[in-house]
């Protein structure tokens, strides 16, 4: 995205446009002449986000209301996005659920729902977008994953597994289409103060959505593959991954 004419608006698709991380990222992009296509499930919330970006000076804001769990409807929505924007320069995938780990431990349906939203539906989007960007021979695919995908922990391993699988998928996709000029960026936020974490007490490790947004945009600018945001999570996760399995399994994390 570095070499572009500032007069031409950047085409940006946001999948999960009411997520706090997505909103903070879009606000920063709005000042940079962006044309948005926002996709989310709740139309009132989507309208509130669209008005905010429009007021902040976005070139244009289009919206599309849909439940991204409905993978059968992805192709139609993405084709409409490409058509309305003229060209997609950046796709940010930011939808996801934390899910109920406790329920998922005993009821497979809960686990399946988490895996479907965070992994399966994302794979569907990535398949379409990966091929679109590959054919275009340019573009950035930025995907909000999580540090939780780096190692399974008893407190949220179903969510972690969905993000871990996503990380592996993104590694492979990058390996395939990076050579065609497509940036595939895996974003790994740590704790972020969002509705997803509103129920837990916030400690010093919590970042604001805007801090994460800054990290995402920096990683896009610098053409990174994987970005821990904030950056100190790289070191935390290096430590956590270094703990030997026979010790790790006894820990309460």
């Amino acid at each position: 995205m570095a070499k572009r004419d500032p007069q031409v608006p950047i085409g940006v698709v946001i999948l999960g446009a009411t997520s706090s991380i997505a909103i903070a990222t879009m606000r920063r992009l709005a000042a940079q002449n962006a044309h948005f296509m926002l996709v989310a499930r709740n139309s009132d919330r989507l309208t509130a986000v669209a008005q905010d970006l429009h007021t902040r000076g976005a070139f244009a804001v289009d919206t599309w209301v849909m439940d991204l769990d409905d993978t059968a409807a992805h192709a139609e929505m993405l084709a409409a996005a490409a058509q309305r924007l003229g060209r997609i320069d950046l796709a940010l995938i930011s939808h996801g659920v934390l899910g109920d780990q406790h329920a998922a431990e005993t009821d497979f349906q809960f686990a399946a729902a988490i895996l479907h939203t965070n992994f399966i539906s994302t794979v569907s989007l990535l398949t379409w977008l990966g091929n679109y960007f590959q054919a275009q021979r340019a573009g950035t695919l930025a995907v909000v994953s999580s540090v939780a995908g780096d190692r399974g922990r008893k407190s949220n391993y179903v969510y972690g597994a969905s993000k871990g699988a996503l990380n592996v998928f993104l590694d492979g996709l990058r390996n395939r289409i990076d050579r065609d000029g497509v940036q595939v960026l895996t974003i790994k936020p740590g704790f972020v103060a969002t509705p997803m974490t509103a129920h837990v007490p916030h400690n010093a490790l919590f970042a604001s959505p805007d801090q994460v947004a800054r990290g995402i945009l920096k990683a896009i600018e610098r053409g990174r593959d994987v970005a821990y945001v904030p950056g100190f999570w790289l070191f935390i996760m290096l430590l956590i991954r270094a703990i030997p399995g026979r010790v790790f399994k006894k820990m309460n994390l």
Partner: protein
Amino acid sequence: MSPRQDQPQFESWGRYPKYPAELHPLFWKEDFPAANAPESKMLAVGMGRSYGDVCLLQHGTLLQTPNLDRLISFDSQTGRLRCEAGVTLAQILDFAVPRGWFLPVTPGTKYVTIGGAIANDIHGKNHHVAGTFGLHTLCFELVRSDGTHVVCSPTDNQEWYAATIGGLGLTGLITWAEVQMRPIVSRSIRYRSTKFVGLDEFLALSHASAHQEYSVAWIDCVAQGRNFARGLFLAGEHDENPGPLTPLDKPRVVMPFDMPAFALNRTSVGAFNTLYYHKQIGKRRSGLTDYEPFFYPLDRILKWNRLYGTQGLLQFQCVLPFDSGSLGMTEVLKAITASGLGSFLAVIKVFGDAVSPGIMSFPVPGVTLALDFPIRREVSFALLDRLADITAEFGGRMYPAKDACMRATHFQQFYPQWQQFSAYVDPSFSSSFWQRVTGLG
């Protein structure tokens, strides 16, 4: 969304009093639990920059609004800005100043939400020409606990408009508001500061600069004798010569720890005040400054309230009507200097006669004084009580947003309209302040 279980404490800016409460962050307007209101009472809170207990509710549910931070519309021709209630004045400035617009009224901190600005009907250095924030609030939406949505303006639902402006958040949840911004062509403020000694000189300076958009004075509440009521009078206006509008990117200083209480005593405060007074060598000084240090000198130090340590501070602000002349304010200042509890910064200003639409609004024409005190069990509360007595004696009133300890009798004397106002209080809303000064639930 369920409220957090573990009750992390929400503190007001004075850090006194401290009460446990459920915290319920609102992320979207529809998160307001109107239909299934909690058993306990509710109160909407923003940045917690009011000093005492108007933003606290013991054993209640605090609806936190700072995530309701979306802009809704902006008309770059007329300067009308509509946004959600949790948007802060800092966020508005970041958005509006580069576009050539400024806040119509701003207090001494930009870290307050628009909802809080309306609920406390805040005032600033331009009160003598512009009145309170409420006068520039074109309309807003009020959501009641019974689920009704009321769009209030000077022409629609005007009784709710009048009750909610300065209504201390008790009439329901403000979800969005529209404000009339003021055009500027530069970030700069053209200012002049003048040393004065005595209230009469302060009043003369205020009178002489009544045409200036902004004016305020810092006054020494420690010095006695021939230095009694010495201070610096500051007046300013937006620069009329086109200049830069883009923001400065200066690092801010955060108070990293709580100061021990012994660090604040008469000697250190006196020394600070002497330094501050003599920082300016000549009688007058003038020039151009960015609006940030002009309006928000203390915002440079985030969390400056930590200077007072964990036990917190008490703030006092009163206004005394003009007809008492400088007599009443002299009494107030004498009581403060005699106590030896004076703060780093006491601020004195003349309020103008622009009438706020808010029935509970604090400012009335006269002279207002604001300062903070450390909490010393034996003496601080007695002093504030004495100051409230003097305020009452001279027909003045105190500012709820700054108060943590005024007596119910004083409040009811200052605001005899409180009973008329109480008809508009939402049955599911309350605050620790309201319970304290009315005895109502």
